[in-house]
């Protein structure tokens, strides 16, 4: 059930911050293991990178980059609220966060193209 507080933009920001953080925490060990595969030779890492060329994995990569940008911008929002007291401009700040994440997503799509 949605409570009134759940309709506030701050609640959506907190939820997205958490969900993106959980996704990144799950992804990180896999990312580290993939990079360390180069200890078995460059070919081992290339084998892994070849798998990432499939559309599904490419879409997941894009989602993770967007999750990283989301978590960073919404984390900056928390630091700003706690240390600079900008609470009254939540909507404007969230709009800026969304714009930054959108820009990163578009840049990733254009670069990965």
């Amino acid at each position, binding site marked *: 059930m949605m409570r009134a507080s759940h309709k506030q933009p701050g609640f959506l920001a907190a939820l997205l911050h958490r969900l993106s953080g959980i996704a990144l925490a799950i992804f990180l060990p896999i990312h580290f293991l993939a990079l360390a595969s180069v200890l078995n030779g460059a070919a081992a890492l290339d084998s892994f*990178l070849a798998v990432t060329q499939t559309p599904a994995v490419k879409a997941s990569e894009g989602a993770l980059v967007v999750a990283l940008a989301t*978590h960073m911008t919404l*984390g900056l929002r928390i630091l700003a609220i706690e240390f600079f007291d900008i609470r009254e401009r939540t909507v404007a700040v969230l709009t800026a966060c969304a714009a930054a994440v959108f820009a990163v997503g578009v840049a990733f799509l254009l670069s990965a193209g």
Partner: protein
Amino acid sequence: MTPVLFLAQRLSAAVLALAVAGHLVTILYAIRGGLTAGDILARTHGNLAFFAFYSVFVVAVAFHAPIGLRNVIREWTPWRGGSLDAALAVFAVMLLVLGFRAVFAVYAA
């Protein structure tokens, strides 16, 4: 959250804000025209600045992620107490070990 964990979370967040911004720029630059192990290693092999940057990144994330997960788990599940803290301490050590192994791999391989 205890004051120490709160401070560690916010300090690591401040470090990660810079580190993630740098990492995102690196990602967007690196993937242009495809990505191969050779491309990655050409930039990272023997590069001390790279090694230092990502070492700081790994340490910050090894503090930040487990503390963040602890907050989420304590709020969204009934899991509390020593077993949760122990599990997340293991997760922190795992991130440190795997992270430094990865940084070392692309620096020295």
